[in-house]
């Protein structure tokens, strides 16, 4: 390989057919005289602009359009050299760092010698070692192209905002489960908004037997095994549900607050007493109607109960998870849109309560297709306020444009699967920890189950890996009509 050109932080390397380099590979461009080396990543592979190639291809086509048949008597065997030159490729590489005195720095301000530089492929294990992507809490994400393992440190996910995105069926949920159970293995408290009911059975291995996570996974299905006793509800939580999930106007909210406080003082807080109080409320008809419709939504959700024995104490589950490590899976599969928002509002309210009162040290939240249940104001809350409380979110989506741009800008880690749509790639490329060229070029060619890992977990050295399989009952498979017919 030969260094050809450098423009900004893009370097072009001439690569001959005997030297194999592909998108995503890392190169070390070593200038021994300067005593330093550039570390660059191949983001595109092009044909080298060899003069005369067009003529070479054209002359084998006569006017008829079919290739002209013939024999080449090449006694000096020049033909392999012609092929060698013709097949030379140009590697477009992005400079990631400078390696000097055993240290990596993100500088690309120097120019290595074009004639003297030695260019060689940098294996992923060596890169990870140089970048010190190692730690005491390893999570094996999968295998890289050079048959090594991509291992990240769980602490690199701690305190971070993560995004897992890619088009449908490429393995996003699988990676999300892998991260989740790995965190669980290290005793973390995890909350999952499980939109499709895929996470509930992670306590079982693929053959249906209990696995090491069985006792740590608490699957909660709203209105089934997950109900809330009205008497145990905090006013701010119920107000959050009414205002944000059920869009109760301000005046009506004030009336509700008054009713709630009155019933609480009388120690008569229940669904039926609440209904009775709203019915007997002496106020504007519109206010009463507004309260009445919200009350029926709460009742119809089946999520609230007057019998404390029937209720699940989420706080207790959270505390248990905090102490021993555990995952609370909120199964939203059979929940209507309104009920989903009520449940999410309740869970997030409880989480913030527990975190702000330091009952809960920190929690990892996995939110699949969050735009379907997360209210507008929560997006900013999650990346700013809640983060400081200790709620570290991982968004999982196949529609990257449903996540706001400011979320991308603040994302610490992005796990990017294949995207072919330019618009989707544009959205993801707005992330602050990644350059648009890398996203556009590498993500477009990622095979299924291959993930481009970007951000803090890989110390800003984007690495492609095939996500490893899990011996878990994942249930994320799409149900097919013709499955057993072929």
């Amino acid at each position, binding site marked *: 390989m030969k260094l050809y050109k450098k423009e900004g932080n893009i370097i072009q390397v001439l690569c001959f057919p005997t030297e194999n380099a592909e998108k995503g590979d890392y190169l070390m461009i070593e200038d021994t005289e300067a005593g330093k080396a550039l570390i660059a990543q191949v983001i595109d592979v092009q044909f080298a602009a*060899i*003069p005369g190639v067009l*003529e070479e291809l054209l002359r084998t086509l*006569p006017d008829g359009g079919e290739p002209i048949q*013939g024999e080449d008597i090449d006694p*000096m065997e020049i033909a392999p050299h012609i092929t060698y030159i013709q097949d030379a490729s140009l590697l477009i590489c992005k400079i990631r760092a400078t390696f000097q005195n055993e240290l990596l720095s993100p500088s690309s301000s120097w120019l290595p010698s074009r004639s003297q530089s030695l260019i060689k492929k940098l294996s992923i294990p060596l890169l990870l070692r140089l970048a010190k992507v190692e730690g005491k809490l390893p999570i094996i994400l999968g295998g890289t192209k050079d048959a090594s393992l991509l291992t990240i440190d769980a602490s690199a996910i701690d305190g971070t905002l993560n995004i897992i995105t890619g088009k449908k069926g490429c393995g996003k949920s699988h990676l999300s489960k892998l991260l989740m159970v790995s965190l669980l293995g290290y005793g973390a408290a995890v909350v999952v908004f499980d939109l499709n009911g895929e996470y509930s059975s992670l306590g079982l291995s693929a053959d249906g037997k209990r696995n090491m996570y069985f006792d740590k996974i608490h699957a909660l299905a709203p209105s089934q095994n997950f109900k809330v006793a009205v008497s145990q509800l905090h006013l701010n939580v119920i107000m959050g549900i009414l205002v944000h999930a059920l869009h109760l106007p301000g005046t009506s909210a004030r009336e509700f607050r008054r009713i709630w406080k009155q019933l609480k003082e009388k120690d008569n807080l229940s669904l039926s007493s609440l209904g009775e109080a709203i019915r007997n409320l002496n106020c504007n008809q519109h206010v009463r109607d507004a309260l009445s419709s919200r009350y029926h939504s709460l009742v119809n959700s089946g999520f609230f109960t007057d019998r404390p024995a029937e209720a699940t104490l989420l706080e207790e589950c959270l505390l248990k998870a905090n102490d021993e490590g555990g995952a609370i899976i909120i199964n939203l599969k059979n929940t209507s849109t309104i009920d989903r928002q009520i449940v999410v509002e309740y869970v997030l309210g409880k989480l913030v309560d527990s975190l702000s009162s330091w009952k809960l040290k920190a929690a990892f939240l996995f939110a699949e297709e969050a735009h379907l249940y997360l209210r507008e104001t929560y997006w900013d809350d999650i990346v700013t306020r809640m983060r400081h409380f200790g709620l570290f979110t991982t968004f999982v989506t196949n529609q990257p444009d449903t996540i706001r741009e400011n979320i991308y800008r603040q994302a610490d880690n992005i796990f990017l699967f294949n995207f072919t749509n330019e618009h989707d790639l544009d959205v993801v490329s707005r992330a602050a920890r990644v350059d648009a060229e890398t996203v556009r070029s590498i993500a477009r060619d990622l095979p299924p189950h291959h993930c481009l890992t970007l951000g803090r977990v890989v110390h800003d050295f984007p690495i492609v890996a095939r996500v490893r399989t899990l011996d878990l009952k994942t249930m994320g498979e799409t149900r097919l009509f013709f499955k057993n017919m072929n």
Partner: protein
Amino acid sequence: MDTTLPQRFLEQSIHSLKQVNHQIFQLNQQPFQQQNTYDQEPTNLQLNRTPIQLKSNHQETTIAAIDTSTIKIGETSTGLIVAIRGATVWKQDRAYRYTRLGPFIFHITEDNKKEVYNTLERAYFTNRYETSHFYAPSLLQMPTRLASLLERWLQTMIAKTVTNGLILLDGSLTSGTIDTPVYRLKEILDLARKNQNIVLAFSKMTMLRINGYLITDQLPSSDPPYLLETSGLRPKPPTVILGDVYVARLGRSSYAFRLDIDKEIQTQKRVEAVEKLVGNDLYNQNYPETLRLSHILCTFTANEVLAMQHFITHKHGIRIINRPDMHRLLFGPFGKGETYA
């Protein structure tokens, strides 16, 4: 087929390259223009403006064409590194086929040029003619002379192997020049005739003029295809033209070419031959496709030049350097390089 000449080409090529081992050489990519030594200003040249109208004859006829090419790959401290390649193309059963021979890479120096040239001359032509008159051309002429040797050998092979066909040559049927002795061209024409072939030589450029105008520019308004006959062409000795010269306009395009047809062929047969050519070949700007392909196939592309430079660097350990172009160095943007000097 007698393959002595290509074998000698290969031997001389390898031998000459061994002498340049581990030397430094200067890159250069200038194709050599074959010197047109044939067209000398004749006296009494006349052009019959009454066209011989041609009718397209589709009778299946083999058409074969030959061309060679040479290019300078670089310079060494003692000489030149050049490459030579030949191509024959034939159209048979409505399909074009080709054979390419080469490239042969030579390192030619003042010391080895005589040996290289005479060895190659002797390789094919000696057994029939005296060799005493052999001499080595100048260093700069060597590439075209070597290419010319290969071209005549390919023409001879085609004349021997094709029967009842048309053999298209690039250039004219002028002989008696330094690189085309009369006996050599005569032998090719004799061989072609013996196999019922007719040789048609097309010149892309001609210097033949009547009243100051090129013969190919004096076209009548008749519908093509047609031939215009010339007469009175008497080149200065020792140059001998072994064909009769025509102006051929073979298609609707406005271009016409000088066409030399073997003198020994009867007039009627000549016309029939051109009619068969019109009926069997394709035309691009009125130039036969077979001949065009032979030229295209033997021409060196920049990619091939790079490959040959790679070959000699790797196989013979020659270090490539880029010596500055003195024109550019001295005249900056006004120096267009040696080619334009």
